[in-house]
């Protein structure tokens, strides 16, 4: 930001005989239409996106909504110390990491596999139908998705019926009522919802692969599987690396909608992640300070991870996000 305005001022002063503040004002006048177009929204972004960061001060207070800022009691790192000695929060942290890791691995493997297999379809019409159907769940809200998941997994749902019919289980399982299953259910639900959508970007990468490579490999007698592993997947390599690095940056962002909507008293030990914890402590129990401390911890760590991931991506010559 700083560097940006410096360079613009510099370029002003080299082009413009008027220097310093006068040149700046002249430029403002010249570009007043562009300023009118952006200034209201810069004010908007500052108020709605930057101002709330000020609220992080609550994490260091015993915040009471009725008191003004100067009347709040400052408590230092008390809430953070409480969080990291609290068994419940440590469990929440474990859930967050486990859920993200499962989503990360599952998300990559399934989307790449799907993209490769869709690419191998030769009938264009069938290909388009498959793709269209595979995007569908992505456009549904998580509320609808959660309703579908809970219906499929209910006592009389299709999953229980199939497993009973095949003789894998002897009595119906209340899938969402057993905490140990939650991570798997979440991973499956996320995959179901997003695999088709996530495959788009890999399909775009595959379409950039030089078709002559396939022809040459074919003449050399390479099998379908060999062509996939030696041409298609290497062709996606750079996209895979960039997305992988970026997703590692989002490791504490495991989402909150499915966890909140599918979570219940029976699976809370496995479903509750940081975001759900913040909602429960903040909105339901009005413990604003503790909830803010947890949210702040998440945001700060994520930010550090993202910066690291971005510079790693740049170092590897893949180009960063910004």
């Amino acid at each position, binding site marked *: 930001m700083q560097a940006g305005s410096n360079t613009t001022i510099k370029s002003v002063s080299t082009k413009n005989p008027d220097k310093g503040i006068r040149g700046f004002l002249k430029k403002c006048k010249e570009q007043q239409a562009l300023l009118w177009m*952006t200034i209201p929204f810069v004010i908007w972004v500052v108020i*709605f*996106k*930057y101002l*709330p960061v000020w609220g992080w001060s609550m994490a260091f207070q015993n915040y009471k909504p009725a008191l003004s800022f100067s009347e709040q009691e400052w408590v230092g790192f008390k809430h953070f110390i409480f969080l990291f000695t609290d068994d419940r929060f440590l469990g929440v942290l474990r859930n967050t990491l486990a859920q993200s890791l499962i989503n990360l691995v599952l998300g990559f493997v399934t989307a790449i596999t799907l993209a490769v297999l869709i690419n191998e379809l030769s009938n264009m019409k069938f290909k388009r139908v498959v793709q269209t159907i595979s995007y569908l769940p992505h456009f549904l809200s998580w*509320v609808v998705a959660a*309703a579908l998941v809970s219906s499929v997994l209910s006592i009389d749902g*299709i999953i229980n019926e199939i497993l009973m019919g095949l003789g894998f289980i002897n009595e119906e399982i209340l899938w969402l009522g057993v905490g140990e299953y939650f991570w798997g259910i979440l991973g499956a639900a996320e995959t179901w919802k997003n695999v088709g959508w996530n495959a788009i970007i890999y399909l775009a990468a595959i379409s950039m692969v030089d078709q002559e490579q396939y022809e040459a490999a074919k003449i050399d007698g390479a099998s379908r599987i060999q062509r996939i592993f030696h041409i298609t997947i290497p062709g996606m390599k750079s996209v895979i690396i960039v997305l992988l690095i970026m997703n590692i940056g989002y490791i504490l962002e495991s989402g909150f909608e499915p966890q909140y909507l599918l979570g219940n008293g029976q699976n809370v030990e496995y479903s509750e992640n940081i975001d759900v914890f913040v909602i429960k402590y903040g909105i339901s129990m009005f413990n604003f300070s503790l909830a803010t401390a947890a*949210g702040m911890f998440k945001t700060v760590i994520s930010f550090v991870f993202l910066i690291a991931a971005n510079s790693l991506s740049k170092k590897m010559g893949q180009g960063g996000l910004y």
Partner: protein
Amino acid sequence: MFKRKKKPGFMRTKEDIIFDTSNIIFMIILCVLMLYPFLNQVALSVNDATDSVRGGIYLWPREFTWHNYEHVFDKAAIYQAIFISVLRTIIGAGVGLFCTAMVAYAIAQPKFMFKRSITIIFIMTMYFNGGLIPTFLLMRDLQLIGSFWVYILPTLISAFNLIIMRSFIEGLPTSIFESARIDGAGDFRIFFKIVLPLSLPVLATVALFVAVFQWNQWFDVFLYNSSQEHLTTLQYELMKILQNSSTTSSGDMASAFANSSDGGGNMVTPKSIQATMTIVASVPIIMVYPFLQRYFVKGMTLGAVK
């Protein structure tokens, strides 16, 4: 590198046939997995509720009835929820689109003095936020709680959509701008008369992103307006049904919630109401997305390539 086979060439080998067949079978299974949960709800929503309790409804209703829909649409609250859902989708997409396009136009101008700094100010918002509680308190201080505008204002411009639009506008031929400027057109005139008409594909993409986002939102209703019945949305109503049925014993007849009968003795159950509401809340999306998905895909790849 590769082993040379005896029969090189472009004919379908045995391996090809096995591969293609299993691939097609896999894709069919995949499509069934994607569609089944939804189609099952469709079947449940048009099947008699008491009959559904017996189980065994998969893709086709056993005792067809519109009664579940009649029951859902019998309540005045549903019309209010539909109204607010539609309103926030239209206003959110319209206003959001306009504001995003305007900022995108400005930061796409190479000579604009704050081009870089404004871009960075917006992009930064992709990577951090104040978090739930501070945002909630801000909305309270701005007196947006209990108002319709809390659905629109906080998500007015998304950095992602802004970048998509900026890339598109930067790709427009600069000669058009130059000649318009020589003719004496100002930035507002260029924006309205030239850029907006030329940007229709990207405008459609972003409008759809915002519209789907707005239609699917439930959390802001829950957070800010859960006590305002006149500002409820379809997604939030479905969410309440879902939360209720997961706390009671998984949607059987025993749970009293939503069980009711009218004069004709027709029963509805939480399960059938949930199925019906699921369909009502997702039908607009299902109807439009097959026609509009190419715009989404375009936006997705545009945003990724940047």
